[in-house]
């Protein structure tokens, strides 16, 4: 039986880390309705947390003038798209996913490494004054 692709979305203004917490709570609740695997939802939460925190931290004032659009297609995999009107990414490309060296006891710089390890097909485009980030998760644990 082929599963039909369903699209879900949340539009939310993100100005503070408290807004990110609230959005993640909402997103995880929605994801748990479709995904029968708490471990998978937890992995997705890690990725979404890094991306949404980055918007608050680096997006600047233009990032919260419009809602951030988070949408995801649920089919044979879960494919996310996040659109924000914050500053463009440096050099208009994805940051390198390199992890910092453990021996230096790094206090940051883990985000993109984690994102790239947990999900796949991560891509970035700057379109009409907005950042478009796409990424996907494999899942065999969708609820019927």
């Amino acid at each position, binding site marked *: 039986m082929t599963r039909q692709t369903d699209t879900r979305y949340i539009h939310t203004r993100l100005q503070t880390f408290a807004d990110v917490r609230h959005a993640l709570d909402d997103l995880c609740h929605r994801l748990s309705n479709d995904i029968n695997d708490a471990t998978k939802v937890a992995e997705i*939460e890690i990725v979404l947390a890094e991306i949404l925190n980055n918007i608050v931290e680096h997006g600047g004032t233009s990032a919260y003038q419009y809602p951030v659009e988070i949408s995801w297609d649920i089919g044979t995999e879960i494919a996310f798209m996040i659109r924000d009107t914050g500053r463009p990414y440096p050099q208009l490309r994805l940051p390198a996913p390199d992890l910092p060296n453990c*021996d230096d006891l790094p206090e*940051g710089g883990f985000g993109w490494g984690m994102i790239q390890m947990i999900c796949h097909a991560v891509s970035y485009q700057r379109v009409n004054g907005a950042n478009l980030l796409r990424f996907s998760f494999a899942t065999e644990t969708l609820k019927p």
Partner: protein
Amino acid sequence: MELSLQPQSDRLGITVNAPRIDAQAAVKFKDAVHTACGNDHSWIILDLANVDFVDSSGLGAIVSIKKHIGKGRRVDLASLGPAVEKVFRLTRMDSVFRIYPTLDDAMADDAAD
């Protein structure tokens, strides 16, 4: 950030009573733990049994505590839940801490080195 302290000879167990060490909580967490650490104990064990979620900011805060605790003192971890353990494993930061199944295990460990 609410912490419970369990001092015992050379070591101090610090239980974090919050579900998330994330970008919103990281600075308060770091300040609260630094204050709680004091100078009386050479070995700090952070008990994360009540923590469900750590993001890269929370991870950075935990590493920062180890980095700035001072010479001759150590910081280790206990009771990492699955999502927290995953973040430490993916970033390989599990290699810079000793990770105990529970705080009691850390408190009972006689072979600290």
